[in-house]
């Protein structure tokens, strides 16, 4: 089937031979170029499958520390699709060897009869009716 770069050359060659608007051609070339860059990056991490497995394994737990290998190329700008609203740094918690010794009850507890389910149902209904309407 050939490498992506070989296929890219073939496709671009075929496209060139056809009557196609210059703008469309430029956009396609840019898209192929971007695909190449992504492909190169995936190769560095062992391919798409390995990257997905790795991402899946860390997706449900907080990342304590990010280690960047000294020989890796750090992008100067984070791609927009990777940008999140996360703050740059949150100190990790260090409570493993700590626990609360409870001698008194600092926690004040009270209970009362109140139909919260009814209020929640009303809230759900009013939200749903607005979504529908």
């Amino acid at each position, binding site marked *: 089937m050939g490498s992506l770069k070989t296929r890219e050359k073939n496709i671009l060659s075929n496209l060139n031979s056809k009557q196609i608007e210059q703008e469309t051609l430029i956009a396609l070339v840019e898209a192929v170029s971007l695909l190449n860059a992504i492909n190169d990056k995936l190769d560095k991490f062992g391919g798409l499958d390995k990257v997905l497995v790795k991402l899946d394994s860390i997706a449900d737990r*907080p990342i304590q520390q990010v280690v960047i290998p000294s020989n890796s190329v750090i992008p100067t700008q984070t791609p927009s699709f990777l940008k999140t*609203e*996360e*703050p740059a740094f*949150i*100190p990790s*918690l*260090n*409570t493993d*060897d*700590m*626990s*609360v*010794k*409870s*001698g*008194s*009850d*600092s*926690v*004040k*507890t*009270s*209970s*009362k*009869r*109140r*139909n*919260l*389910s*009814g*209020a*929640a*149902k*009303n*809230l*759900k209904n*009013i*939200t749903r009716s*607005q979504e529908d309407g």
Partner: protein
Amino acid sequence: MAKKDTIDLTIPQAPKLVGIDCGTMNVVAANTNDDGDVVTRSIRNMYLPLDKDGINLTDLSQLDYVESDDEIFIIGEDAFRFANIFAKEVKRPMQKGLIAANNVDSMDVLALIMEQLIGRTDNGICVYSVPAPSVDKENDILFHENVFKRIFSELGYKAVPFNEAMGIVYSECTEDEHFTALSFSYGAGMSNVALSYKGNQVLAFSCARGGDWIDESVARQFGTVPNRVTSIKENNTNLTDYKQGSKKERLIREGIVYYYRNLISYTLDMIKTKLETELANVDLPDALPIIVSGGTSKATGFMDLFRAIVEDYDEFPFEIKEVRAAQDPLTAVAEGLLIKAISEYGEHNE
């Protein structure tokens, strides 16, 4: 023979739902028990660090505390009492309504306070309060929100942040009000305001004035410490009649009333300006209820003062249907957030 209760493990178990008001002075959690009653649990959000070397742990057997390698941290109400007895200053994991990131122990102690309050689970969802962006101070709500998210995640909960003042609307609106109201949450660290229309947040903001600001401002005027003002404020101060106690106390009470008055006017001015500018072209309902909550609003005479100041406004952008206090100003936010949690993730969410 009585039928044994069995749990069918093939049926997904309902998650534990909790609403949490993460306040500067108090943290309050609300959930429901098996009888359908609302259970609220609260703890003072503060701790007192003590040097481990000078402490005999058996002396602490009647207290709630956390032990680390070098230090002991007395937590909650006990920290407040001990600090007053030994003239020490308590530490607070939050200041001005947000996580105080300048103290390395704060977040660890806060996490343990939260564990004490809501426990660990493997299937929980908690909707927790966050303030709206401030109109008068640059504040990092993003950091605050994410630290709490991490704490709750580590305790086994899916953590969902939600606006504090909207919680009051969800908790306090009657059925015929359809979650449409203007709410004020006067806390220790800041004040939050939200306008809700049919359960949707139309406008929300916070300002960096609250109970602590009153204490600090009055203390500065009279050359005393804020704790002293807090003590006078919480003991027999009536905001509609400050002429009680010794001459010095009367003066301090007079100062407290001035700053309370300013706090209320400040938040009302803010919402009036915002409604007239940002929502000038929005059709507001003809009449809206105003609901007031938060620990700072618990002072004797607060609601009378609030109503008197509202009446001083010649014109408000909408007709005020009613001004009322939340049924329980300390638990309203947590209960409202629990309503939000049940509506989104509870039994009605089929």
